[in-house]
């Protein structure tokens, strides 16, 4: 492979797979919150 092609291959991998890795990390840092209750809980006696 030519040097130019190798550089573009590496840049493509870093940007696209790096983008995937970064977005996965960003998502896992924010665990899913539990759902809001649909209605207020019944009053406690």
């Amino acid at each position, binding site marked *: 492979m030519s040097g130019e092609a190798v550089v*573009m291959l590496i*840049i493509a991998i870093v*940007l696209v797979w790096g*983008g*995937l890795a970064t*977005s996965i990390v960003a*998502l896992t840092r924010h665990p*899913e*919150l539990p759902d809001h209750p649909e209605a207020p809980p019944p009053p406690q006696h």
Partner: protein
Amino acid sequence: MEQQREQWGTRLGFILAAAGSAIGLGNIWRFPYVAYDNGGGAFLIPYLVALLTAGIPLLILEYTLGHRFRGSPPLTFRRLARPAEAIGWWQVAICFVIAVYYAVIVAWAVMYTGFSFTLAWGDDPDTFLFQEFLQVADEPGMISSYVAGVAWPLVGVWLVVLAILVFGIRGGIERANKILIPLLVLIFGVLVVRAITLDGAGVGLDALFTPDWSAITDGAVWVAAYGQIFFSLSVGFGIMITYASYLRRRADLTGTALVVGFANSSFELLAGIGVFATIGFMASASGIAVDEVATSGIGLAFVAFPTIISSLPATPELFGVLFFASLSVAGMTSLISIVQVVVATVQDRLGTRRLPAVLIVGGGAAIASIVLFPTGEGLYILDAADHFINQYGIALAALVIVITVAWLLRRLPMLQSHANETSAVRIGRWWLIALGVITPLVLGWMMWDSLQTELAANYEGYATSFLLVAGWGVALAALVFGLVMSRLPWRGTEMEPVPVSREATEEGRR
């Protein structure tokens, strides 16, 4: 009372299902050639720009619509604004048409996985495909012969898809994708490793990645980049709206859209490496230039690849099984999502349970598929229907959606605040500009461009009478179906637009 809507079991389950839908045949057989043909390494720039300014913004839009209005496309658009309901029905008709022919290609891939064990295509894969396996008629026209060798695997594909759908979102679709997507990555990964270790692989990768910087200033290259992102991500025909309608209320919409968008592109890039490394082997082994071997679509998968597989020095059977099994799995997970749009619509519209909905819809689509396509003329009908429903179904519907939501109804700011309410990555003005300005302009330009090509010469040189039925006729029928269905009254009051939650009600008042 409205039935409790199904939900995804886990966030990972939704991401795998959405990625499974986005990753399809186009990632494997379309992206590598489009990239190669449009500037090679330099294509990366328009491609990434298109991903960030159209692909991911559209994904976020569809997720937010489905999540906010919690319905299949007709119900979602009806709840957005009554007259917009027609768009949803149009999308459902598009999904029906695509499901009917997409299943056929999955059936071919399944058969070729089997053929790989014995390299059944012999010395002339072209003749094998068109004459022995598909028994294609000499010219396009109405159906005149039936091909049992395609019909039986097609029945099998439909049975598997319907069986998965019967088990519902969590028990069927989510569970299937949790198995199939890791499996796809594994088998395709093994294939790529084998491909890059072949003699001459570097020649192919050179052809794919050497940048032609002049391409950056060529408008056609940018149109190709937006087209690839657009058709590859499964946006525009309601799948992501439907899948997102089963998300939990507090789901992170923008974060998952980023993961799914980049996952789709990551697989595409992997496919580019695998396909061009293989093509490089072929070119250097036979002493011909890469541009004479490089191709896309059915020709790449079912003619060029079998030719290359037969000439491999060691274990060609294994390579064939890995390649066609990848195609089968990638196609199957996309097909499931396409049929689910129609199933969800029947459930919403008629208030039926899942089983009858699957049987009505799936059965109808399966019968149409099994009657029309395992025939001598099936390939021509498939080719014409695919081209016209993509251009004047999916792309046109997406254009109508962005114009309707952004400009006619002016609901982007409301959707933006809905997405930001539950998402860690907040969307700002760039999202409004991407959907309000960039996407309509690019899609509008693509539409104008393809219409001009269409009017200059008949697609693939097919007869006008044939195109009026199998091409224009199919695309127009989907649109008319949408308009007609949206005029029919919904039965009962349970399907009337209802506020989805307290927060939504408050939001509506703002």
